[in-house]
């Protein structure tokens, strides 16, 4: 054979390899093909192609592997078992930027499924190679490396600690300052995943000076970037008072409140989460946010949104009101209670209703003024029905009962207590009757209203053990009225009257 024919054999082989690897890469974008590919044994075929002479084939093979691993965790495990990772980690350090991107993509796809797989990735020494890639010039390489680090750190605290020990954080903070928006997004998301596990990790992130850069990006027009920035800030501030104070010192208020009106839903949710994590810690922080008008903004946000995204806003109102009665009064003055009442009746999910019940309880438990504001919004019958419904979850029932009890113990607004008198079970009825017994002895108009609305009749119908607290309350209410009225309304009075008719001697 001539030399040319010999070379043609090699040409054909190379062409075949290239077309195979490119087709596989394209087929693996569609999920329905992946099962078939896996059964056909594509892993074992792709593995030697990673070591191919031609760089394009290497890169396309890595890309195909990454897409396959992305799809489900069995394939990712097959990659780990097939000892492909050490090769990838080695070439991550050596090869050109396109291969680095592909290798980082594969590592990320493997690490995202479970902590064990992420641990396997870490055990291959991927962290050092990824951190070195973070120092590259090309923004695409940095993005891929940061993404992989973020997925590794997402699972648990030990993995995050390993990422931090590899020295990733200062480089990630540098990445955040880069002009490319995609890189900023990924770096912010990685910082958020690292700092969410423990206060020490969050402190490490803060020590690298992340807060200043994150707070500069708050008013960036890109919505996905804002999501990640707010998520990162809220993960940092949730751990302790000091961290929350540092986040607040970055002067994000009141600029952050404008982001509550962002068109993107998840930006709003993350902003509300950030505000909630800050107000959770101390009354001073809550006071700061209230003074900046945060409560009004959050209440509007609750009114505009539906479903799960409302939850952080509702909890924020609860935390603010829980600290002190002045703050609870501030929440009431900002028209929070009608909004929460609407949430309580509108929302279908139990955990949101439970959070709303808790918040209302925190608002109404301080003084009679607060309890009156909550009762006027017609919340108490709704709380009672939530407590009584058998289909409410246990958590919802417990929270509704606690909220109801704490509001009732301070409520002196009788028109709101009346409906409860007719419907409540004995353990709640005790408190309702107790409140009546506190108010009625001093207010004559209320006494009159009590009789005409049928409350006195209901009181007489209540059965209770003599000597119990409930009986004591009933006696004190009965003592407010003349005996004839009490006897008139006691059950069976008509029977006793008729008996008297039976025994009566007519006067001739």
């Amino acid at each position, binding site marked *: 054979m001539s030399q040319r024919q010999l070379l043609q054999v090699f040409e054909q082989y190379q062409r075949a390899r290239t077309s195979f690897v490119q087709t596989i890469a394209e087929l693996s974008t569609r999920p329905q093909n992946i099962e078939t590919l896996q059964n056909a044994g594509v892993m074992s075929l792709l593995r030697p192609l990673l070591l191919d002479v031609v760089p394009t084939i290497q890169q396309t093979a890595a890309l195909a592997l990454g897409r396959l691993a992305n799809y489900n965790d069995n394939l990712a495990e097959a990659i780990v078992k097939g000892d492909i990772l050490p090769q990838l980690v080695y070439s991550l350090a050596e090869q050109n930027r396109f291969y680095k991107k592909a290798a980082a993509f594969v590592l990320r796809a493997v690490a995202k499924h479970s902590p064990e797989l992420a641990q396997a990735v870490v055990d291959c020494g991927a962290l050092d190679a990824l951190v070195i890639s973070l120092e590259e010039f090309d923004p695409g390489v940095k993005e891929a490396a940061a993404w992989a680090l973020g997925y590794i750190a997402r699972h648990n605290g030990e993995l995050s600690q390993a990422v931090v020990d590899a020295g990733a954080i200062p480089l990630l903070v540098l990445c955040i300052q880069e002009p490319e928006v995609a890189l900023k997004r990924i770096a912010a998301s990685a910082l958020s995943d690292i700092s969410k596990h423990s206060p020490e990790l969050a402190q490490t992130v803060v020590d690298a000076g992340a807060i200043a850069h994150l707070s500069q990006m708050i008013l960036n027009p890109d919505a996905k970037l804002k999501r990640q920035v707010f998520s990162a800030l809220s993960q940092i501030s949730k751990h302790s008072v000091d961290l929350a104070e540092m986040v607040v010192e970055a002067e994000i208020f*009141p600029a952050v409140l404008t982001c509550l009106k962002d068109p993107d839903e998840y930006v709003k949710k993350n902003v509300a989460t950030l505000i909630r994590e800050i107000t959770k810690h101390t009354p001073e922080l809550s006071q700061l946010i209230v003074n900046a008008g945060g409560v009004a903004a959050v209440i509007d946000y609750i009114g505009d949104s539906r479903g799960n995204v409302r939850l952080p806003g509702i909890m924020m109102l609860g935390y603010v009101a829980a600290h002190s009665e002045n703050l609870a009064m501030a929440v009431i003055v900002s028209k929070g209670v009608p909004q929460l009442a609407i949430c309580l009746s509108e929302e279908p999910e139990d955990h949101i209703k439970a959070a709303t019940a808790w918040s209302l309880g925190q608002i109404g438990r301080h003084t009679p003024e607060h309890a009156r504001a909550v009762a006027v919004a017609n919340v108490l019958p709704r709380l009672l029905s939530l407590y009584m419904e058998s289909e409410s979850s246990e958590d919802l029932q417990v929270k509704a009962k606690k909220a109801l009890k704490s509001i009732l113990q301070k409520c002196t607004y009788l028109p709101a207590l009346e409906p409860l008198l007719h419907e409540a079970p004995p353990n709640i009825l005790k408190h309702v009757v107790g409140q009546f017994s506190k108010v009625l002895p001093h207010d004559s108009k209320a006494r009159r209203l009590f009789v005409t609305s049928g409350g006195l009749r209901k009181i007489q119908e209540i059965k209770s053990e003599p000597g119990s607290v409930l009986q004591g309350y009933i006696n004190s209410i009965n003592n407010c009225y003349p005996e004839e009225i009490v006897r008139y309304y006691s059950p069976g009075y008509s029977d006793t009257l008729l008996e008297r008719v039976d025994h009566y001697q007519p006067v001739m």
Partner: protein
Amino acid sequence: MATMVKLQRKINGIKEESFNRNRVAEENRRKEHKAALLIQSWFRGCRVRAYLRHLQRKATTIQKIWRGYLGRMYFRRMVKTAYFIMKMNFYNVMAVRIQKRWRAYYVRKYVHNYYALKQYLEGLTMTNEIVRRELEEFAVIKSREQEKTALESGERKKDYLARKMHYLVSTEQIAGVFNSPYKLFPDEMEFRLRGAKPLSPKASRSRKNGTEGIVETSAPRTPFALPQIEHLPPIPKKKQQGPFRDPTEVLLQRYKPLEPTLRVATSITSVEEAREELKRKEWGSQVNDELFHHFSNANKSRRHELMLHTSSKFGHVDYGTKHFREENPEKLKGKKDFKRVFTTVQVFDKFGKMYSSAGKAV
């Protein structure tokens, strides 16, 4: 002689007698000795007892007097402490009254200041209103921007579509799809098509690939890439005959823009200009143009100026100190002063002076 014989006769008798008497006496000696001892001891006993009784009486007297003295002293001490306790209780009660009033004032003014809370809540409502209004404006602006961008991107898409499908434009002979003869006016797409520039084939091919960047397509290609569409060979430009250089090169060289070196580009007076610039900047950032002269106030004897805040008649409003509480000095006239001193007990003046002159005490 007779007496001597009598006496001699008695001698024997005397001997016997004396012997008898001795014997009797000896026999009785013990008894009598004992009796005498008894009598003597009894008498001595009586004497001693009388002495002891006497002593006892004296001792009792002394003790009685001494106990009386102690008891009176103790009593006096008890009265003193009781008096002291009574005084302290009185003072405590009065102090509690003062503290009660002070705490009520303090709490109402500083801790749970109702009016401050009311003002704060009113201020808060106003802030909330402002924040709500601004946020609504912001939301409106944002939604308008979004609509605008959506509209613009829609327009661009339609224009791009028109460029791709420019062949659907209607001609004289054939009315296009968008130019139905049954309608009065052609569709808006028709107008777009008429105004669109046809898309060149190169532009249609340079569309973004999703995996662009991951695979290096600009790497030195293998000599055996996948078969591609054959391009037509380029139309060659007519080359001038002769030893001429490429006209593009020549034009580039002829119209090359001036690139002066840094030394040439800086002006001669750049140092002075820089100084001027610096001076201007400093002048602009200064607050006070006067130079600071050290120790210049030493020789000027200026009167001390009071603070505006406290001195002028438009000073700070005395909130709470002057009109928080009403004062009616007229109502207080005629009332007796508050008694600050408790009445003394005269007993104590005489303490230590009731006794003998030997018992003089201070």
